[in-house]
């Protein structure tokens, strides 16, 4: 396939492109919380929550190939750790983040113990059970002294008082007004930082010896073991790490909403499915897939959120969704998922990779210290079949 441009990986052009992407992202990051509307800031923060959760699931499922339908439980562990520690023990919500991380890591490793021996659909079932049990466990009467039972917990968030500092720079306050009502930019930043941290953890793991061993486990676990990959330990740690990362956006949602209940959508199995679908639509096994998937998902949900009244639906879509009494965003996204599975099984990122070569091909740096074939043993057949 011919490409318009060819650039060298690690060369000047590739760095320029990376910088351009980073600059656009940075500009967006600054523009949204300072100039965007309140509702836009809200939507972005929700998208961040989903991005972080889908990223963490992606490390486990997209890379290591271990399915989990129980990530809503890890998300919920984050939510409830923050809620309980803030309301019962008076912790600052931000100090609860590392606690949630560690707690979810431990639970994740424990859950992985039965998962070490099982695969595929059985693993899906075991983790599904976890996702289903979690809200029931939270609502368990004997635990209501801690979790507030079915009523949930109130006032779990950050307290905005007169004592809070302000961070004005010449009258411009990127964090929002921490003493008053408008604190949405503040949550935006917390969400952005959580996504960044989760992304950097995933990236560090993926682009390393461990990351390669995860993909090896996914592709062929017997061969991985023969290469020296310690299967139980690697699977256990990646399960724990994925769970731990998923707790962070959970904590954020407790900080942000101020009220938690066990029936919140993202804390039930529906949450697990949401993370899963976002990851798949964006592109499993790619670092940007979950980020793009979450952005697209939240965009669709937002756009169709008002479609509960026939009059609010654009004329083009009215015949299809006029009968619906609930917003069809989730359903639309599901249709997008099914369509995508036909045209791009590797999600939006896969679609991009497939077609972007026409525009620009990135040539990898040559590998190895020599480019001469020492043995000159290349069989002719190999050359002929694969120059394409």
């Amino acid at each position: 396939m011919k490409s318009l441009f060819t650039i060298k990986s690690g060369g000047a052009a590739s760095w320029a492109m990376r910088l351009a992407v980073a600059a656009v992202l940075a500009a967006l990051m600054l523009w949204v919380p300072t100039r965007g509307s309140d509702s836009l800031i809200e939507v972005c923060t929700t998208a961040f929550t989903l991005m972080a959760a889908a990223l963490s699931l992606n490390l486990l499922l997209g890379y290591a190939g271990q399915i989990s339908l129980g990530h809503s439980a890890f998300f919920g562990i984050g939510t409830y750790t923050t809620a309980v520690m803030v309301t019962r023990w008076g912790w600052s919500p931000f100090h609860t983040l590392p606690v949630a991380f560690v707690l979810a890591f431990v639970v994740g490793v424990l859950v992985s113990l039965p998962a070490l021996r099982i695969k595929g659909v059985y693993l899906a079932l075991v983790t599904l059970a976890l996702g289903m049990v979690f809200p029931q466990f939270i609502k368990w009467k004997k635990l209501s002294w801690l979790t507030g039972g079915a009523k949930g917990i109130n006032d779990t968030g950050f307290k905005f008082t007169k004592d809070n500092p302000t961070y004005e720079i010449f009258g411009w306050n990127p964090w929002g007004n921490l003493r008053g009502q408008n604190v949405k930019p503040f949550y935006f930043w917390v969400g952005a930082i959580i996504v960044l941290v989760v992304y950097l953890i995933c990236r560090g793991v993926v682009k390393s010896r461990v990351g390669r061993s995860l993909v090896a486990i996914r592709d062929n676990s017997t061969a991985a073991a023969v290469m020296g990959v310690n299967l139980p330990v690697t699977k256990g740690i990646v399960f724990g790490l994925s769970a731990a990362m998923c707790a962070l956006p959970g904590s954020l949602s407790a900080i942000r909403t101020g009220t938690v209940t066990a029936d919140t959508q993202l804390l039930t199995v529906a949450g697990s499915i949401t993370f899963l679908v976002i990851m798949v639509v964006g592109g499993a096994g790619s670092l940007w897939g979950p980020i793009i998937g979450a952005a697209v998902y939240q965009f669709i949900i937002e756009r169709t959120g008002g479609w509960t009244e026939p009059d609010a639906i654009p004329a083009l879509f009215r015949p299809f969704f006029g009968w619906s009494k609930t917003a069809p965003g989730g359903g639309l996204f599901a249709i997008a998922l099914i369509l995508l599975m036909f045209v791009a099984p590797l999600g939006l990122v896969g679609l991009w990779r497939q077609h972007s070569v026409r525009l620009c091909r990135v040539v990898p740096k040559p590998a190895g210290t020599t480019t001469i074939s020492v043995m000159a043993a290349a069989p002719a057949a190999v050359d002929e079949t694969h120059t394409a």
Partner: protein
Amino acid sequence: MTLLDVEDVTMRFGGIVALDGLSFSIEEGHICGLIGPNGAGKTTMFNVVSRIYQPTLGSVRFRGEELLTVPAHAIARLGIARTFQNLALFPTMTLLENVMVGAHSQGRVGFGKAISRISAAGDNRRTRDDAGDLLHELGLGHLAFVPAAGLPFGTLKRLEIARALAARPSFLLLDEPAAGLPHGEVDELGHTISTIRDQFNLTVLLVEHHMSMVMSISDRVVVMEFGRKIAEGTPSEVQNNEKVIEAYLGTTT
């Protein structure tokens, strides 16, 4: 010096006895051919040595150390690497990445170092360069960035050798490396195998059905039938052995 010592190994699968009190040993630095009719138990033997199967009875010692108590993932670090008869590659990875995973036992970067990026970049660069060199040596350098899935069988068998060598083994087990190769290339592969043996100071256990190749490069040959060793010796001794001729020609007396 004896490198590998297989003693009285029996492996049963339900009613099937795949290995039946098999014993043989391999001298360090040798290429040892392991031949036998289909179903003789050669691959099973490989799986026992690489700890995929736990044999019913017997003992396997490597440099005098019992292997059957060592976990599967620790075998590579002891210096044992293998290829698979029916390919066990990582299809979504490129050839280069496949070989990089082969070097897993050589690396030290775990989750902590990967996340904190301590020494991860250097490790990646070294592993990548080594892998690239190995691919070039096996004549696959031009395919380094092509995904493994969909390449011809013969190419992938070569890739398996490159991946196994990435572990810097002292003992290499090759399970039918010439399978799927056109006739003309079989001898060339035999040549490659003896060259890498010398270059990497290897001991090789070679399972192969191409007799001319086995006989020309092996120092010793072990012949199996029905999970038992029926003959052992130099290639010429084995070729003239009556039991072997019988097993291969199927003459019954």
